[in-house]
């Protein structure tokens, strides 16, 4: 079992796609069983016994499990009864408990994951590529998955395994390759590597730690969320009983495994989805019923998690992107409620942002699509900060940004915080989360299940709460030698009875 680690955007998925024939390499060779191969499509790779479970599910929602599994390999067992028997057989053998005739859209993430694995096994793959299979699974499911993988390994299959959870990697992998910016920067053997060493290898330098400077938290509440509930179609709660307060000058960090309600929470706060019950108040005004535009005008800033979908008009020039989201505000427009656009003003201000935030671009007339991801992010941060928000939603503010820019963005957030900004910080980078936050909350399954003090908590301890293993107030427990906690060490949570404690105003 070979693990592949690297930063976001290091090229892990890309490399795997090349192995799987989805993309073509410009140079270099691939050898399978000692034989040099060149794949022109996944079909070739599949024929060579390579199977891949993708980072993002590759399932057609409106097709049944059976159809998804047999697709592309109909020759093996047909698309009818034979295939159904085969699926049952594989499912039983590896304990995947997959129902062949269910529609994929009715399945949960863990089930989908198992369908993906089944797809690969159905094709009789000998080399299994798993791209971040655990990102969306709860611990029990992760354990079950690893159990399956070990079984596969024992049957002689090779597994390539990608994960950001270094503890996980160290516990299951036989060998680790680290890549950075598209090249291999090292290999490691789990037995004599610590997570911290691995992390430093990934980043290529000392980890920049976003140290917490002195607290600037005031007692002036800016954002108050009370018993917020959000339902999916059909009445299932995706957010339930969410209650918290963020004060002026406070950064509230929200930890959680992707898919536990963060996206929905952001959408409820920004006004893209309306709450089914509960209230949201901004500086005392109830804003639950306000439309998005009014919220933004009244000082809600937004650094979206997916900048391409929610933050930019990719084919518009930079200066128009600078207007996006603040079209009614100066300097973008003038007149009553910003009726008239002010392109001159916007262009000038865009130049200022490009300068001040070090957006690397030859001009403000190029399209946003032609900037690199990091520079796009800097533009977004600059835009949001320029309007002096009272409350900032920062979702993965430094995702895909280089180390230098990362530090710069952190500085920006800290500075605004000093001036009384309230921030909701959501990040997959636990170091960032711990380093930047004044308060930490953990979201799990649509509920706030735990809180912690960022001053003392370690990423590992936080991680255990994120998987639902620990709830309540998390205390740091000193264990062995401070810095390097053992891989996979569970924090012993002093689970208090009350699951969602009232926010303690500091």
């Amino acid at each position, binding site marked *: 079992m070979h693990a592949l680690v690297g930063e976001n955007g290091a090229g892990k998925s890309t490399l795997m796609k090349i192995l799987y024939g*989805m993309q073509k390499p410009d140079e270099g060779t691939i050898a399978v069983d000692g034989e040099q191969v060149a794949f022109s499509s*996944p079909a070739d790779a599949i024929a060579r016994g390579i199977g891949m479970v993708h980072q993002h599910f590759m399932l057609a929602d409106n097709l049944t499990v059976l159809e998804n599994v047999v697709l*592309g390999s109909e020759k093996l067992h047909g698309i009818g009864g034979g295939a159904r028997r085969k699926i049952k057989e594989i499912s039983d053998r590896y304990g995947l408990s997959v129902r062949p005739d269910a529609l994929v*859209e009715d399945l949960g993430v863990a089930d989908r994951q198992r369908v993906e694995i089944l797809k690969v096994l159905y094709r009789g793959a000998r080399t299994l590529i798993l791209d971040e299979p655990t990102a969306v699974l709860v611990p029990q499911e992760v354990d079950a998955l690893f159990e399956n993988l070990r079984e596969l390994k024992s049957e002689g299959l090779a597994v390539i395994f990608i994960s950001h959870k270094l503890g996980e990697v160290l516990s299951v992998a036989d060998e680790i390759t680290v890549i950075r910016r598209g090249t291999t920067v090292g290999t490691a053997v789990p037995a004599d590597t610590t997570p911290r060493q691995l992390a430093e290898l990934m980043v290529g330098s000392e980890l920049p730690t976003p140290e917490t400077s002195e607290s600037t938290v005031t007692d002036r509440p800016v954002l108050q969320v009370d018993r917020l509930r959000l339902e999916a179609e059909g009445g299932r709660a995706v957010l339930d009983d969410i209650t918290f307060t963020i004060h002026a000058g406070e950064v509230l960090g929200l930890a959680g495994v992707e898919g536990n309600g963060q996206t929905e929470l952001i959408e409820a706060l920004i006004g893209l989805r309306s709450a089914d019950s509960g209230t949201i108040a901004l500086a005392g005004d109830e804003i639950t019923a306000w439309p998005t535009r009014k919220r933004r005008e009244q000082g809600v800033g937004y650094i979206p998690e997916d900048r391409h979908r929610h933050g930019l008009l990719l084919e518009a020039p930079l200066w128009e992107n600078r207007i996006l989201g603040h079209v009614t505000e100066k300097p973008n427009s003038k007149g009553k409620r910003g009726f008239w656009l002010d392109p001159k003003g916007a262009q000038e201000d865009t130049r200022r942002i490009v300068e001040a935030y070090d957006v690397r671009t030859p001009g403000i007339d190029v399209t946003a699509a032609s900037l690199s991801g990091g520079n796009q992010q800097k533009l977004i941060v600059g835009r949001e900060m320029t309007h002096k928000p009272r409350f900032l939603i920062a979702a993965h503010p430094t995702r895909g940004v280089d180390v230098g820019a990362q530090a710069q963005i952190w500085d920006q957030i800290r500075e605004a915080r000093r001036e009384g900004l309230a921030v909701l910080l959501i990040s997959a980078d636990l170091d960032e989360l711990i380093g930047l936050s004044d308060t930490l909350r953990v979201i799990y399954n649509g509920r706030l299940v735990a809180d912690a003090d960022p001053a003392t908590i370690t990423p590992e301890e936080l991680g255990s709460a994120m998987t639902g293993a620990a709830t309540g107030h998390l205390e740091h427990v000193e264990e062995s030698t401070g810095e390097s906690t053992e891989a996979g060490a569970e924090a012993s949570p002093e689970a208090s009875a009350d699951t969602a404690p009232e926010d303690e105003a500091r």
Partner: protein
Amino acid sequence: MSAQTIAKPQAQQPGKGKRRISLPVLLLIIAGVLVLTSVVRLITGADGITSTGQMSTALRLAVPIGLAGLGGLWAERAGVVNIGLEGMMILGTWFGAWAGYQWGPWVGIAFGILGGCLGAVLHAIATVTFNVNHIVSGVAINILALGTARYLSKFTFEEAPGGSSKQSPPIDSLGTFDIPGLSGWLDTLNQKHWFLVSDIAGLVGGLVTDLSPLTVIAVALVPASWWILWRTAFGLRLRSCGENPVAAESLGVNVYKYKYLAVIISGGFAGLGGAFLSIVASNVYLDGQTAGRGYIGLAAMIFGNWMPGGLALGAGLFGYTDSLNLRGGTTNVHALILLLAILLVFGAAYLVWKKRYVPAVITALISAVMFFWYADTDEVPRQLVTAAPYIVTLLVLSFSAQRLRMPKADGMPYRRGQGK
């Protein structure tokens, strides 16, 4: 620009129970409507609404719409919106007639299909290879096909005996046939105007009377399409390209190939529909013969929720209202107002049962207006009859659009190797 605008389903995941009406319930509803229709016929004496002739005409009028709809179905199941069906139909009428008058109707049909495919290849090049917005490309094809057919007519039909620049020479008929015994017996039964029995006889009789072989083929293509798309590996691959092409690609499916094939097949269906118009419906090609049937076919397909059966129902509805329109529609449609009023009473009752009182009251009010209208008049304006199929489609869509479910990647651009 993404072309994902056709009936964007707003409710992404309707509960499972909501999505499908079970077969017995469906049969019960159909039976209920049939009984009601029969009652209305007896009350109003509008025997035309279920006569054999009416049904047979409805079938004949439904065929080209259904074929266009099937064309749309094939393309959209593979993720390509095909608003160019109209143009492909035009090419079908022209090519069908051109080959038909020279070499006989069957050759004409083959050429009609070919003509539609030709237009489809263009559409595929634009949308699949160049990722041009699907609706835009379709509109362009419609313009181009019209010009091409007219231009070609000048060179071919104008000099031909019995032809003109707008009309081809007559084409030999494919002939029609009845099912011996059965057709006559059903017609006799229908003529008796008995309760229910005659209505069913009319309905079934219409389906077996005065059939053209091409009608039989067209009707058979509906289940055939279903079987190929839902029961074969080829169909599975094709549909996967419309649901999630990146997933299909990741399993070694050549998405481009299937999209091309689907669009070309789609054009073939449209072309066949066109050939039906110029060879069977009338025996000549005429300028403007398709009269928007390509668009209507598309509407029938959406109406039918991107399923062959639903599509056939939609095409049948258009065919039926159109045939009412051509066959003494004003009194027949007048009778149908009573039917609609009664149906609305049931609807209101259902809503009351569901405790949705406001819609129930509105429904009841509309129903009352309908009753009054029925009682107060003897026939409806001719114009209303003409507009009936379109109004019905709009109404049905506005009640059901949210339950419709288009293929997920329909109309979206796709490029190999660019999936995330």
